[in-house]
């Protein structure tokens, strides 16, 4: 049918199929600012456009329905003001405000948010915060926690009313969004470190530029699709693909018979992978509902989906194992009976055991004997999903040199290349992995999940192939957080000293063992290490952590932000709260009394590392006490805790308020193992290309790496052009996981910049000496984009660059460095929560979350606070509403973002972030990590607040209304 649409004041006419959605029409027409959230039914809002000025999901409307209406996309909102000789009207005020407020993290939902805000501001001149939140409620954001986008939108009104002048926008808006930063350590003075620099990628993201994996078109590109298993455990008796292959437009149908049988692990980790090899690209057995059965490549999505329906699969169903407590029983069905299975450490597929951990620190049994009281408790934590708004996406193609290019939304491009090499039968040198912009990952993209699918189909067809998961596939066939059942046993003296602490975790890795050992190792290694006990126990704590990680017929678990640690803090901190309550201790004082202090040994460091040899680590900086003090003040703890009149809500006798606290400790990188590299080179104009293998998945790491380089080179962040990452052009980096980028990649960047700086100083000294008194390189200081001698003479970086590249003793000024950390300095946090509980229905409302964090020196307070706000929001979901549930046949309850509810902008509690700055001596700028720790404390703090509100002692999260009411009945 012929259609004519009015898009951004341009008329576009073309022939289309009647079923084409507006979303598909726009993407095909090159409007890549309209993003795919995987759903096609309006769950996430990433595809938002304006129709007649109203925000609408373009995936749930036909293009033909939009005919006769005015359509606006982000491409029509504003653009870069300076395009060489062509000047444009520039950015819209909203785009500017989003940049200045740091309202962008991964940027995948940014165009949608800006459009939704634009619609609101056209309708309402002076919207309230509630109205702003409602207006953007249709756009789900998994990164920001919504606070900064809301503040950015609020600021437009201030500009309109004249309250703030346009030229003062940057300063004024920063005042609004800057977190509280309290320094408790001496720190050198820096120029760029500690500054709220604008994100280096913000400008492209507010314009909706085609920065993401599938924002490209390649001639002859096919659509790849996966046939997923409909049964939880079965042998594939037969697959008939004849009808699918005959379908016009189908180029390949692959089953397990077509591919080499190469066993591997999808876990994106350094070699050797610390886990069993137990997966094949395609196998003759399926192990969960959603497991892979066949791949199809076709000329359109519709044809590919039709082809999937034409594949006839005959299953020989096997007994299903869903209950992890039954996994190791003698009569349990065995998931992995394949001959190719390769063990790692204690894995034993005959017992459905993917990994086993036994760590004893000190003498735990003796510690229990020394205790006055012993407390035990059982706890359950759920399986949850990363739910990044950009699904897993891959495009693969052969290049002109017959090398396979894999363009993928991954956190681990170098691991993808290495892991896929044997799977594809290609040497590493014939694979190039390009990581464009990532629309959120949170560990879900630390997995080599669908890159092999696209690659196999490209090999089979010779065509470029695009594979992108739908939202349903994200739920049934991606990775998730390991659910666990945890038993706690703790010995306590009557003065509150912990004498021994024991945790046993039964962890469910699902059908495959990716990350089984390391995730669960961190569950104990990070959480249990926080509480060493007091007095003599500080030098010789008694801690035990045992775990069994078992297979079940559920979708595999994997890496999810926090990497096992949130699973540890729910049982640990809820248990400590119960002990404090039972023994009458102040909950904050009890925790502080037993918590790790500076210059003490990380007690697990001598017993366990992530599948490697453990080495002792001293924890140099611990800002926990100050975090507790600041958080306590911010939430007004002293006026609320155990204050019965505050707990009651006037005129609502069924409501009770409560307040809770939890402490957390995370890690910063994996010591002696993971490496990051950086290359920096100087350009003619004195700018620098910084090439890193590190992957910014929305965290702001490209920006803080640029800040570190700029600090060393004495230049501006704008003059550091970050390129990340491409296995052909950027140096190796382990990727973005384990809270390592600031620490490991940052140190590599700093060292590379130092090399370049050294060359700059030598040349500057030579240039200055020619025109005056002699100067040595050691006397040169790099600052304000100049090299300045002690006597005040200077040459600009541009002059130095021209001198080096064109005029004299020509050389490419550059630096290259790599770094492996000898330690993992932990960040610390005190998390507070305030809640209201309906004691008659169990309905829970979280009113406020306050987090005080010691992340060392904060490199960029805006991006760091964005991490904390977004992290707290994810953790809030973990606390109250997110979980993945399966029926007795292993079919999932949650397959979309309606049933799997993540928080919207219009239901958020108040968030507050405080940074307590220590100065970590092992980092060039004193930094530690901040990415993962916000995930740790929210759930237990909320659980503790519920206990405080109404006495309901929850041992299982999320805290659903029914669970709360049941817990209330127990005390009645």
């Amino acid at each position, binding site marked *: 049918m012929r259609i004519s649409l009015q898009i951004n004041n341009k008329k576009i006419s073309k022939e289309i199929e*009647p079923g084409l959605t507006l979303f598909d029409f726009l993407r095909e027409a090159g409007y890549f600012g309209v993003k795919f959230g995987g759903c096609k*039914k309006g769950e996430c809002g990433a595809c938002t456009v304006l129709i007649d000025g*109203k925000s609408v999901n373009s995936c749930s409307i*036909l293009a033909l329905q939009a005919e006769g209406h005015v359509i606006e996309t982000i491409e029509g909102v504003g653009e870069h003001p300076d395009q060489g000789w062509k000047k444009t009207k520039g950015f819209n005020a909203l785009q500017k405000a989003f940049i200045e407020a740091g309202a962008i993290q991964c940027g995948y939902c940014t165009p949608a948010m800006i459009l939704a805000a634009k619609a609101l501001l056209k309708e309402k001149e002076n919207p309230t915060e509630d109205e702003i939140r409602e207006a953007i409620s249709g756009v789900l954001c998994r990164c920001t926690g919504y606070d900064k986008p809301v503040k950015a939108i609020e600021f437009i009104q201030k500009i309109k009313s004249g309250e703030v002048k346009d030229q003062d926008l940057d300063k004024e808006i920063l005042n609004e969004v800057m977190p509280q930063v309290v320094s408790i350590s001496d720190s050198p003075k820096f120029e760029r470190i500690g500054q709220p620099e604008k994100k280096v990628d913000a400008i492209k993201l507010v314009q909706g530029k085609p920065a993401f994996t599938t924002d490209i078109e390649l001639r002859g590109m096919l659509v790849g699709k996966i046939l997923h298993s409909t049964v939880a455990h079965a042998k594939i008796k037969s697959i008939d693909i004849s009808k699918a292959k005959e379908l016009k437009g189908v180029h390949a149908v692959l089953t397990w018979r077509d591919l080499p049988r190469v066993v591997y692990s999808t876990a994106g980790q350094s070699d050797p992978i610390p886990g069993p090899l137990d997966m094949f690209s395609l196998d003759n057995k399926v192990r969960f509902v959603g497991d892979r059965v066949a791949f199809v490549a076709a000329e359109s999505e519709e044809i590919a989906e039709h082809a999937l329906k034409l594949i006839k699969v005959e299953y020989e169903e096997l007994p299903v194992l869903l209950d992890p407590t039954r996994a190791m029983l003698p009569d349990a069905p065995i998931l992995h009976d394949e001959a190719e299975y390769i063990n790692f450490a204690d894995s034993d597929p005959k017992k459905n055991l993917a990994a086993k951990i036994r760590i004893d620190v000190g003498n735990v049994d003796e510690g229990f004997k020394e205790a006055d009281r012993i407390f035990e408790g059982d706890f359950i934590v759920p399986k949850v999903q990363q739910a990044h708004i950009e699904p897993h996406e891959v495009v693969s193609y052969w290049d002109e040199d017959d090398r396979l290019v894999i363009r993928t939304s991954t956190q681990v491009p170098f691991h993808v290349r290495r892991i896929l090499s044997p799977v594809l039968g290609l040497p590493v040198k014939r694979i190039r992995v390009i990581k464009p912009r990532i629309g959120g990952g949170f560990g879900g993209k630390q997995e080599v999940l669908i890159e092999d699918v696209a690659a196999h189909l490209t090999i089979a067809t010779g065509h470029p192939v695009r594979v992108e998961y739908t939202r349903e596939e994200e739920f049934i066939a991606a990775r998730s957080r390991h659910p666990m059942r945890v038993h706690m046993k703790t010995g306590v003296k009557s003065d509150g000293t912990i004498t021994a602490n024991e945790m046993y975790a039964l962890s469910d890795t699902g059908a495959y063992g990716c990350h089984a050992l390391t995730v669960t190792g961190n569950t104990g290694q990070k959480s249990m290490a926080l509480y060493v006990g007091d007095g003599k126990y500080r030098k010789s704590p008694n801690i035990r952590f045992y775990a069994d990680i078992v297979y079940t017929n559920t979708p595999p678990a994997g890496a999810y932000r926090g990497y096992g640690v949130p699973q540890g803090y729910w049982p640990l901190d809820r248990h400590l709260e119960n002990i404090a309550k039972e023994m009458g201790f102040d909950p904050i004082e009890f925790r502080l009394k037993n918590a790790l202090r500076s210059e003490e040994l990380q007690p697990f460091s001598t017993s366990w590392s992530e599948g490697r040899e453990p080495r002792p680590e001293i924890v140099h900086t611990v800002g926990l006490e100050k975090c507790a003090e600041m958080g306590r003040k911010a939430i007004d703890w002293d006026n609320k805790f155990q204050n019965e009149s505050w707990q009651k809500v006037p005129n609502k006798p069924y409501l009770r308020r409560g307040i809770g606290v939890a402490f957390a400790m995370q890690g910063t990188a994996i010591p002696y193992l993971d490496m990051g590299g950086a290359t920096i080179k100087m350009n003619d104009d004195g700018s620098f290309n910084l090439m890193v293998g590190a992957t910014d998945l929305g965290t702001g790491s490209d920006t803080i790496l640029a800040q570190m380089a700029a600090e060393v080179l004495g230049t501006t962040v704008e003059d550091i052009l970050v390129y990340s990452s491409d296995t052909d052009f950027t140096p190796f980096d382990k990727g973005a996981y384990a809270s390592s980028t600031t620490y490991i990649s940052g140190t590599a960047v700093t060292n590379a910049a130092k090399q370049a700086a050294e060359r700059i100083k030598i040349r500057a000294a030579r240039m200055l000496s020619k025109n005056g008194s002699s100067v040595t390189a050691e006397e040169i200081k790099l600052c304000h984009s100049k090299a300045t001698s002690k006597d005040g003479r200077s040459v600009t970086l541009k002059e130095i660059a021209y001198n080096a590249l064109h005029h004299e003793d020509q050389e490419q000024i550059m630096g290259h460095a790599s770094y492996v950390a000898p330690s993992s300095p932990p960040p610390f946090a005190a998390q507070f929560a305030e809640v209201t509980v309906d004691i008659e229905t169990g*309905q829970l409302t979280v009113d406020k979350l306050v987090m005080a964090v010691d992340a060392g020196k904060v490199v960029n307070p805006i991006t760091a606070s964005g991490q904390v706000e977004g992290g707290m929001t994810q953790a809030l979901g973990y606390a109250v509403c997110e979980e993945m549930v399966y029926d007795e046949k292993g079919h999932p309850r949650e397959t979309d973002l309606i049933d799997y509810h993540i928080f919207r902008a219009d239901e958020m509690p108040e968030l507050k972030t405080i940074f307590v700055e220590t100065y970590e001596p092992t980092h060039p700028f004193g930094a530690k990590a901040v990415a993962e720790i916000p995930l740790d404390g929210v759930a237990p703090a909320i659980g503790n607040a519920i206990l405080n509100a109404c006495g309901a002692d929850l041992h299982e999260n999320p805290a659903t209304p029914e669970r709360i009411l049941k817990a209330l009945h127990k005390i009645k």
Partner: protein
Amino acid sequence: MIIDYSRPKNMKEAIALLDRKEPRSIPLAGGSIVSKLRGEPVAVVDLQDLGLAQISKSTNSFDIGSMVTLNEFGEYFKSPEITKAISIQAAKNKQNSATLGGLVCLADGRSPLLTLLLALDASLVWEPTGKTISLGNWLPQRREWNEGKILTAIKISESRIKFDSIGRSPKDQPILCCAVASWKTGRIRIAIGGFGPTPTLALDGNKTDNIQKAVKIALSNSKDQWASSEYRIEAGTKLAERLLNES
């Protein structure tokens, strides 16, 4: 799969299109269903030009055109209870495109807005038959309904409405929701949702003495993957009692 699209300019034309035997033709309102139409060939008939996006008020009642969006519905009534139900039903983008008619035809028992409409004793007007039927009577025969091709309007009479919902978060789909409508005549209707294929009418009458029993009956088979019947009965009773007291 959608093989044909038409946008009729009047009701007669629309009915004729929907009467076609081949291809199977279905009305298209906001568009929420388009992603689901991927199987057998189907023609869609877009109702946007039929003038069904109006709300009009007569003495004690309102005629709400079936193409009125959820957002327009909320904006017109400006009732905090209706606004709350709409905002739980859908976030802003969907409110701007989803229509009340589409919701009535497609929503299930978890729908807060359908629960609210059931409490309000909404009536549905169909063309070409001109048939009017109460929502409560229509919902059980929704799948087999053949006395009208196009839902043109939803009628509600003036009443006082109270609504509340229990979910895992403030805007989560309800595990349980309850709407209580009361009229000047003393009539009270209580509808309960959050489970099942349609919301359930717990009470319709002037007496509320047996509210606990009524709620218990309505929720006795409400167990599903989201909550037990026992929980829903206990919480639902409290919710209904509270809303009744407030109404």
